[in-house]
C-alpha cells in the first residue's frame, strides 16, 4: 500500500488536484499515520462497543456460566455442569411451558395472519380515506403491551366486561375468559391478534404494492375468477412478505410475556404459563437463577433452530419475482 505513506491530502490550495479512482480512495482510508487512524476508529466505535460489551456480551456469556450452576441469587454458586439442562428436560413443567407457548403460537399466528391479510387486501383498493383506516388499524401496534393487556382484561372481564355484556344482549352466556383455564389462552391470543394485526397489514401492504398490475390484467384476459387471481397471482407474489411475517411472528411468539404477565400472570391453574413467564418465575419467585438461565438458553436454541429451518425451507414455497 504505497499510497498510505504519502500522507493524507491536506491544504487544498497547495495540493494539486488528484485524479479520482481507486488510488485516491485508498489514500482517504489509510491516510495519516496508523496510530492516529486507530484513534479515530476507536472514537467512532467505543460509544456503542463499550455499552454493548458491558450490557449485552458480558451478560450473554455470564448467562451461559450461570446456567451451569445451582444458584439462589444469595448464597455462593455451586457448579453442577449440565445438570440444570438435564433436569429441565426431564421436568414436566418445562414441557408444559413449551406446550403452552406452542398453543399460543398455533392460535395466534393463523389468526393474526388472516386478519392482517384481509385488512391489507381491503386497504390496497382505491377506498376513500384509506390512509385514515390504515392509521386506525395500526394504532394498537404503537400502544404498550401493558395497556393493551389491561384493556382486554377489562373487556373480557367475565362478570361485567363489555364482551360478555354484548354476548348477553344476543342471548349468549359468555365464557369465563381469563378466569377459566380453558379460555385463558384464547383470551391472550385474541388480545395479541388485535394488537398485532396492523403490523401484519403494513408488511403485507408493502408486498402487495410491489405486485405489478399488468399481471392481473393478463389474468383477467385469460378469464380467471377473482378467487383464482388471488390464489395464483396474489398469494405467490406475496409469499416473500408472508415469509417475513411468519419468521418475525414465530420469534415474537416464542418470546411472548408482557401480555401474559399482565392478563393472567401464567394462571389460572398454570394454563398460560409460557416459557418466558416460567423464566421470570424461576428467577424472581423461586430463586432458581441457574435453572432460569438454562431455560432461557433452551428457548434461544429452539427459536434459532425454528428460524434456520424456515430459512432453509423457504425455497419450497416462497417465490421471489
Amino acid at each position: 500500500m504505497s499510497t498510505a505513506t504519502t500522507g493524507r491530502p491536506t491544504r487544498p490550495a497547495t495540493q494539486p488536484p488528484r485524479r479520482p479512482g481507486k488510488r485516491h480512495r485508498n489514500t482517504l482510508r489509510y491516510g495519516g499515520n496508523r496510530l492516529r487512524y486507530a484513534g479515530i476508529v476507536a472514537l467512532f466505535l467505543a460509544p456503542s462497543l463499550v455499552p454493548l460489551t458491558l450490557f449485552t456480551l458480558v451478560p450473554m456469556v455470564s448467562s451461559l456460566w450461570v446456567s451451569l450452576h445451582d444458584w439462589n441469587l444469595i448464597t455462593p454458586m455451586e457448579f453442577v455442569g449440565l445438570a440444570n439442562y438435564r433436569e429441565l428436560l426431564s421436568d414436566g413443567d418445562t414441557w408444559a411451558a413449551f406446550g403452552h407457548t406452542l398453543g399460543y403460537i398455533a392460535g395466534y399466528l393463523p389468526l393474526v395472519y388472516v386478519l392482517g391479510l384481509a385488512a391489507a387486501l381491503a386497504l390496497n383498493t382505491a377506498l376513500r380515506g384509506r390512509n385514515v383506516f390504515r392509521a386506525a388499524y395500526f394504532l394498537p401496534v404503537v400502544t404498550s403491551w401493558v395497556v393493551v393487556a389491561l384493556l382486554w382484561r377489562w373487556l373480557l372481564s367475565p362478570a361485567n366486561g363489555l364482551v360478555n355484556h354484548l354476548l348477553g344482549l344476543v342471548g349468549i352466556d359468555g365464557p369465563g375468559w381469563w378466569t377459566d383455564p380453558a379460555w385463558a389462552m384464547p383470551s391472550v391470543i385474541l388480545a395479541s391478534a388485535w394488537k398485532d394485526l396492523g403490523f401484519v397489514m403494513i408488511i403485507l401492504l408493502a408486498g402487495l404494492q410491489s405486485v405489478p398490475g399488468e399481471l392481473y390484467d393478463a389474468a383477467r384476459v385469460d378469464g380467471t375468477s377473482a378467487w383464482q387471481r388471488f390464489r395464483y397471482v396474489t398469494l405467490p407474489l406475496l409469499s416473500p412478505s408472508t415469509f417475513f411475517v411468519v419468521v418475525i411472528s414465530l420469534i415474537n411468539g416464542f418470546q411472548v410475556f408482557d401480555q401474559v404477565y399482565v392478563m393472567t400472570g401464567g394462571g389460572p391453574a398454570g394454563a398460560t404459563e409460557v416459557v418466558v413467564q416460567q423464566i421470570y418465575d424461576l428467577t424472581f419467585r423461586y430463586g432458581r437463577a441457574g435453572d432460569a438461565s438454562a431455560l432461557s438458553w433452551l428457548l434461544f436454541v429452539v427459536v434459532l433452530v425454528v428460524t434456520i429451518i424456515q430459512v432453509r425451507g423457504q425455497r419450497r414455497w416462497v417465490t421471489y419475482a
Partner: protein
Amino acid sequence: MRRAVLYAAVIAGALVMLFPFAWTVITSITPGAGLGSPDLIPDEPGLDAYRTLLDAMPFWRILANSLWIAVASTLLQLVTSAMAAYAFARLNFPGRNALFLVYLATLMVPMQVLVVPLFIEMRELNLVDTYAALLAPSIASAFGVFLLRQAVAQVPIELDEAATIDGAGHLRIFVSIVWPLIRPALATFAVLAFMSSWNSFLWPLVVIRSPELMTLPLGLSTLHGQFTTEWDVVMAGSVISIVPIAVLYLAAQKYVIQGVARSGLK
C-alpha cells in the same frame, strides 16, 4: 354494491380497532366502573378516577420518568449507532467484518436471555433500582447500527472525498456531511427507539422497585394490582399513557410505518 360491502367491512373493522380505546376513556370517566358495565354515555361523568390515580401513586413523576428515559435513550442510541455505522461504512480497519458480525449476533439474543445476568450485574454494580440501570441496556443498539450503516453506505463517497480535499477530518465529515444526509433514516430509527423504550416492560419490572423510579407500563401494572376491580382508575392510567405515544405516532406516522415495513420491528 361490492364497494358498499367493502366499505361496510372496513368501517366495521375500524370500529373493532378503535372502540376499545373509546371504551378506555368512557370507563375512566364513569365513577364506580367495574361494579357494573359502564353505559356508552355515562350518566354522571366525573374525573374522580383521575384524582384517585394521582393520590395513589406519583403519577406525574412516573410520566416524566417515561418521557425522559425514552428521550435520553433515543438520543444516546442515535449518536452511538450513527457513529458506529460511520465506522463500519467508511473506515477501514482490520477485523471490521468480524466485529460487524458480533454486533449482528447480539441482535439475535432476546432480552429474556439477558434479563437474569443483567439483573445480577446491576446488583454487583449497586445499580438496582436506579435510573442508570433503567438506561444501561439502551445506550447502544446493534439494530440501529445495522439500519444506519445502510444509510451511510448510500451517501456518495465523492462528498467525503471533496471534504477531505478541503481539509476535513472524519469527525467533521461525520457531523457536517453524513449526519444531515442520513436524516430520514435517523428519524425512522428515532421513532422506533422511542416507542420501544416507552413501551418496554420486562427490564423495568425486573430492575425497579421504588414507585418514584417507575416508568408508565410498570406503574400501570402495579396500579392494576392495587385497584383490581376499580377499572375506572386503571383505565384513567391507561388513557394518560396512551395519549403521548398516540400523538407521536400520528405526527410521525410516515416514519413509523416506513420503519416497521423496512425492519419488521415493533
